[in-house]
């Protein structure tokens, strides 16, 4: 995997190239009509150590901009917002059993669900590519950076 990195204080924020991003914290990688979805590095750093992951079940329809589950960290409970619409085909059992994977490998082993997507093209207009997301994330880090690491 290829990344861009932004360093703020002691935090290194990684943005994976070649995938798409939703402003509310999820990334999506599309392969044919299958979307793999997870949370961004910025999301996991901002929200802290993940204690529990709850996801909608296989076969459930998800809608872009709406919740498909939630993550409970030591700091907060956060809804997971779907970056695309589709039907959940698979969820990552490994992440349910070892939620710390979301922190240690958010773009790899820490993926959350795979969904069958019918119309990625129209969903894509509401998503950012990695360059756009990098700039968006950088602005958010600069704005919220002072609160990072304060628990």
């Amino acid at each position, binding site marked *: 995997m290829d*990344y*861009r*990195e*932004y*360093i*703020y*204080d*002691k*935090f*290194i924020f990684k943005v994976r190239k070649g995938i798409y991003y939703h402003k509310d914290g999820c990334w999506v990688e599309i392969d044919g009509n299958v979307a793999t979805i997870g949370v961004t590095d910025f999301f996991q750093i901002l929200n802290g150590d993940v204690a529990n992951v709850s996801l909608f079940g296989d076969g459930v329809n998800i809608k872009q901009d709406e919740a498909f589950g939630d993550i409970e960290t030591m700091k907060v409970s956060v809804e997971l917002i779907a970056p695309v619409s589709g039907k959940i085909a698979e969820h990552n059992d490994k992440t349910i059993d070892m939620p710390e994977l979301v922190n240690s490998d958010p773009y790899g082993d820490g993926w959350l669900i795979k969904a069958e997507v019918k119309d990625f093209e129209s969903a894509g207009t509401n998503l950012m590519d990695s360059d756009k997301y*990098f700039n968006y994330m950088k602005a958010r*880090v*600069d704005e919220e*950076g*002072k609160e990072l*690491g*304060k628990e």
Partner: protein
Amino acid sequence: MEENEKKISKVGIVSCSGEDLPEGSISRLATLDVLHHKKPFDTTTICLPLYVAGGEGDRMFAKNHPTITVDGCEKLCAKKATEKYSGKVTHSINVRDFIKSSDDLKNKSSLNEDDKRITAEVADAISIKVDEILKENNK
């Protein structure tokens, strides 16, 4: 890695863990006081166990920013680790220098009023050094 941008000059504070010693508790509490109350926007904590275990961000920060180490005893673990992984320590503080007699610290898991006074003195000393370092760096 395509891009690597530094942002904001701060001082990194590396405290020892000091499990077996009340001085370790003082080191930790004084550091936290500076990080959260006295100098919250001028300092960052470097978590010593993570730093030693290979924490990339912590090591990179300590390499590129001034650091203050706070140790509880003559083993100087925080100072040694910072020197080993980052090559330099801007200023080193030892809690023992603030203790007038070995009778001052008795109970390792809870601190009495004298211990709290020492903690406050150490925190003040760290804060003063933070100001000096940032002033020097921003000349």
